[in-house]
């Protein structure tokens, strides 16, 4: 791995973000809307439930963590799409840049955009709804670690799909987190799901984060099994995603798709 080349991939994204407010605002806008929407819903639920139960840490905390994952995934795919739109693959892959360095550059981009976006919504949630995500204590770091690794895996996986199918597959990148969300138990315990779906949910690392978060909020402890399952599964997904992307890269080189990327086929 050559750090200068990884930095080059990142620097290009930085140049794009620095000089274009529409790109820069994309880091905040959707996740801020999400926080506002769910913030007001939780406030309303607090009023109408009369139960004394505070929905804010349970629901707003969950949506903050979920948006963190989405931000990581989209940080990667958006950076890749910039190269799709600029038809830059030939320049990149005919240079000494390796595929591992390219992915690392995308990950670095995602880390920076995620820190900026997530930092912003933490402040919004604090100011508008009085929610402090740091009340989760050290567990927050563990939750973010699992979601970060799984977000990277999703981002790399969707990037591989776009690389294989061409620019027309761009749309696939956007709904993937939404497809997973009902099974991730963001707002409800996994026991709410039918048995068959519970099995699928248990294969998803975010499910352990959200189950764990509810456990921390109600019992102030986190079962080590949740933690191990979440960390272990997310690393497996990341390894799988990297192998998948590498395989797709070899396919597009073998078939010549990378040189005819905009044509979306070689025949």
């Amino acid at each position, binding site marked *: 791995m*050559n750090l*200068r*080349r990884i*930095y*080059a991939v990142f*620097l*290009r994204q930085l*140049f*794009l973000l620095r*000089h*274009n407010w529409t790109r820069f605002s994309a880091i905040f806008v959707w996740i801020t809307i999400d926080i506002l929407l769910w913030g007001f819903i939780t406030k309303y639920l607090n009023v109408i439930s009369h139960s004394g139960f505070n929905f804010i840490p349970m629901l707003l905390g969950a949506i903050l963590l979920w948006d963190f994952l989405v931000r990581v995934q989209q940080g990667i795919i958006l950076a890749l799409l910039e190269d799709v739109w*600029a*038809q*830059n693959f*030939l*320049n*990149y*892959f*005919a*240079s*000494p*840049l*390796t595929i591992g360095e390219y992915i690392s550059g995308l990950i670095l981009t995602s880390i920076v955009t995620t820190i900026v976006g997530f930092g912003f919504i933490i402040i919004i949630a604090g100011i508008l709804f009085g929610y402090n995500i740091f009340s989760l204590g050290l567990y927050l770091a563990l939750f973010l670690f699992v979601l970060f690794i799984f977000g990277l895996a999703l981002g790399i996986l969707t990037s591989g799909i776009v690389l294989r199918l061409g620019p027309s597959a761009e749309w696939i990148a956007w709904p993937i987190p939404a497809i997973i969300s009902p099974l991730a138990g963001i707002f409800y315990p996994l026991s709410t799901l039918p048995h068959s779906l519970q099995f699928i949910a248990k294969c998803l690392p975010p499910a352990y984060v959200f189950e764990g978060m509810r456990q921390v909020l109600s019992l102030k402890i986190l079962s080590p099994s949740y933690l191990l399952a979440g960390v272990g599964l997310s690393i497996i997904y990341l390894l799988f995603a990297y192998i998948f992307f590498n395989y797709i890269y070899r396919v597009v*080189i*073998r078939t*010549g798709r*990378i*040189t005819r990327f905009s044509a979306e086929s*070689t*025949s």
Partner: protein
Amino acid sequence: MDKKTVLIVNNLIREYGSLRAVDDISFAVKNGEIVGLLGPNGAGKTTIIDMILGVLEPTSGTVEILGYDIKRQRSKAMEKVNFAAVYSHVPGNITVRQNLTIFGLLYGVKNLTKRIDSLLVEFDLREFASKKVGLLSSGEQTRVNLAKSVINLPNLFLLDEPTASLDPSTARLIREKMRSYVQKINAGILWTSHNMHEVEEVCDRVLFLSRGSILLEGNPKTLPQEHNKKDLEELFITIAREPLSLRLE
């Protein structure tokens, strides 16, 4: 490998299904040599260049650049190679200087700021340094691509119709610049062009391709006479229309 050889292409074959786009081609490019890769559209020129760049896998055969096998040591080989092609542009949504910075980092250029400053002067791009590439004229964009292609002082240049969108005066300047580069850093160039006057002016040797095979090879100044043709253009037209007549000679 001969010390003076920068590129060795050995028995290169590329098939797309039943179509053989490149058919068992072998050739070499030496230091300080400009080799023209000529042929009608679809003859396989760009496919060969793509395989040399490592962005297309050959069905069989090998490519060696400065002793590095492109299949196993692509990244190492590419540090000493660069290219400019009429169909490939640096991203238009960042400035000239930003592009040169990124490609300078990718190619491991030392003293990058100084190198970029000298390229901006050399390719007459100083006034556009802070302008987005997409806002430049096609000729100016070509100059940016050429500046990018020499940023790492490569030992091997792959130029796919590098002057196709330039006016005659700028095209001549670019030809002179590339020739002087070859002399200065003793690089080898593989140059494709449909401008036969250009080929005659810059190339030391040409390879004529037809349907994926090398049909003729020789000095562009003497090759037409050797085949009873008035000039290189007439020879080109013959190859494009009646390749069999030359095969039978």
